[in-house]
């Protein structure tokens, strides 16, 4: 730890500081970065995209000690769940019995493949990723058996045939991760957190 900071000195740091903005409120579709990631061997703070995972204002938490640690944890309204951990939960249940859940996911993947970008709740968007990736993987393989498997999952025939026709050139080089989720404003009626999910 000490080895990285010996290259800096207080005077050089203080002289290079022009003016420090006290807070920056960015109106964007992200939640403020507040995840806690323990990096035991990191000596220099990471630049660029990794900064999104660091707390936005590290100074108040450094100086104020234990009382402000709660700001660093994920504060999401979890619909009644008490803990914020996910130990051992493999399948997102989506508050539905299994047959309805399967039908919901089939419908969502069909609509996503048809329209390219849909707006649903965050839980459904993150649950449907797996099935969309599966469908695109089936289309990449392209054999008759895979086509019939896709026809058994997606509700509309045209979409399956269009998918099998265009996926090789569109996703030929990409290995996985064929969707993107963008979080957005909550829904007005019930304040459900919403997200756009789109094909890459």
């Amino acid at each position, binding site marked *: *730890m*000490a080895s990285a*900071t010996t290259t*800096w*000195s*207080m005077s050089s*740091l*203080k002289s*290079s*500081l*022009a003016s*420090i*903005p006290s807070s*920056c409120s*960015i*109106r*964007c*579709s*992200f939640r403020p970065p507040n995840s*806690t*990631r*323990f*990096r*035991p061997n*990191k000596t220099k*703070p990471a*630049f*660029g995209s990794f*900064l*999104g995972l*660091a*707390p*936005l*204002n*590290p*100074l108040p*938490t*450094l100086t104020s000690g234990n009382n402000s640690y709660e700001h*660093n944890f994920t504060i999401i309204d979890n619909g009644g769940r008490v803990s914020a951990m996910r130990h051992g939960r493999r399948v997102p249940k989506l508050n539905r019995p299994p047959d309805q859940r399967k039908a919901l996911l089939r419908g969502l993947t069909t609509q996503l*493949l*048809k*329209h*390219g*970008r*849909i*707006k649903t709740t965050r839980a459904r968007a993150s649950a449907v990723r797996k099935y969309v990736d599966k469908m695109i993987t089936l289309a990449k393989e392209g054999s008759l058996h895979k086509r019939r498997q896709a026809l058994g999952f997606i509700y509309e025939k045209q979409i399956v045939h269009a998918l099998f026709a*265009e996926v090789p050139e569109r996703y030929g080089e990409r290995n996985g991760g064929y969707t*993107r989720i*963008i979080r*957005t*404003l909550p829904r*007005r009626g019930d304040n459900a957190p919403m997200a*756009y999910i*789109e*094909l890459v």
Partner: protein
Amino acid sequence: MHQIQLTHFHTPSELHQSLSLSLYIITFINIMSRMAEPLAVGRVIGEVVDTFTPSVKLNVTYNLNKTVSNGHELMPNLITTKPHVDIGGEDMRSAYTLIMTDPDVPGPSDPYLREHLHWIVTDIPGTTDASFGREIVSYEAPKPVIGIHRYVFLLFKQKTRKSVTPPTSRDRFNTRSFSQEHGLGLPVAAVYFNAQRENAARRR
């Protein structure tokens, strides 16, 4: 958390302060680039323009109360008339060009007609709004048919006045090539919103 690491060591207070100051520097340097983060996530940077640093304020408002924020959705009946666009800039001698395009035509799953041009206003003096500029391509109300479309407002700084001419057609517009042929370079501000076709079920 790297805060916990610092408190575990018996470091002199100067070391502690220098680390925190360095974190401050890094956040300060990255603030301007982080304002473009929603544009990168929404793939406006990447599909419409290249990476740029926003330097000029841009406020787009429909109907006096609906401000366009990155990634938020607006109803198509609200966006039929042209919005009120306020721009920043240092003084009134600089001229800016505002372009509004739709990169998801005809639908975001297969945008083979990318992009469609909706509006161009040129020679906008700095710190004023779009009504002071010259509208060379008149405002066309967005009509998304398939899927959810993004509508992107881009602000470019002009080198000279009267340097931007209207393109030949609105279809198959390419923002990069347009800015290159008129010498506009990278944009100085951008904002985008989403819109989808309103059907009878969405009566909100």
